[in-house]
């Protein structure tokens, strides 16, 4: 079983829809939860991060973490064609320094397409 599972999609929704992207994980030591966005022919870039459980909002984007269920979500409100990209969830157990214990584990990514 992979440490992080993510539905690869593709997911296609009309412009203006609410999008829900999800990941599940198995390692209860994870404390940092990130969402990266990757446009075609580009490297991933950090979109949002959350520490431990709870919600975090940034404009049209909301990240949600439920540690009891080992489940994280990214919601996109009023989706735009410019949101079309691959979204990767990522997780880390450690916050300082970089070691094997703190490495970031990435999901395989969900390809999202917003239809005009």
């Amino acid at each position: 079983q992979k440490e992080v599972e993510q539905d690869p999609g593709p997911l296609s929704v009309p412009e203006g829809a609410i999008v829900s992207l999800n990941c599940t994980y198995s390692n209860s030591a994870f404390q940092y939860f990130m969402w990266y966005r990757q446009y075609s022919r580009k490297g991933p870039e950090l979109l949002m991060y959350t520490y431990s459980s709870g919600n975090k909002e940034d404009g049209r984007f909301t990240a949600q973490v439920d540690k009891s269920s080992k489940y994280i979500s990214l919601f996109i409100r009023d989706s735009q064609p410019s949101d079309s990209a691959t979204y990767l969830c990522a997780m880390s157990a450690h916050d300082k320094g970089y070691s094997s214990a703190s490495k970031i584990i990435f999901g395989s990514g969900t390809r999202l397409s917003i239809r005009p």
Partner: protein
Amino acid sequence: DVKVTQSSRYLVKRTGEKVFLECVQDMDHENMFWYRQDPGLGLRLIYFSYDVKMKEKGDIPEGYSVSREKKERFSLILESASTNQTSMYLCASSYGRTRLTYEQYFGPGTRLTVT
């Protein structure tokens, strides 16, 4: 603005060739990483380095080596390229031991095809 650059966007090599992929970052980051990205498998860590001349194996180091002689530069070497190393290779960097390391800055990637 952080910039991570990779030496080539596209590369075609023959089986058995020695391949060098170079990565340069301009933010004085301590940590640098090499990943490969394959459909359905996501990003898999090959090697990382947290200091000059320091390196640690990631999840899939077999068939690869790395070199970090200068802080800003991290090279990935395929000693004898094989067709199963055809992939997208992504370099990333991040701040070091005294800062939060959840944010990695990625280069645009090198799509390597081995024939």
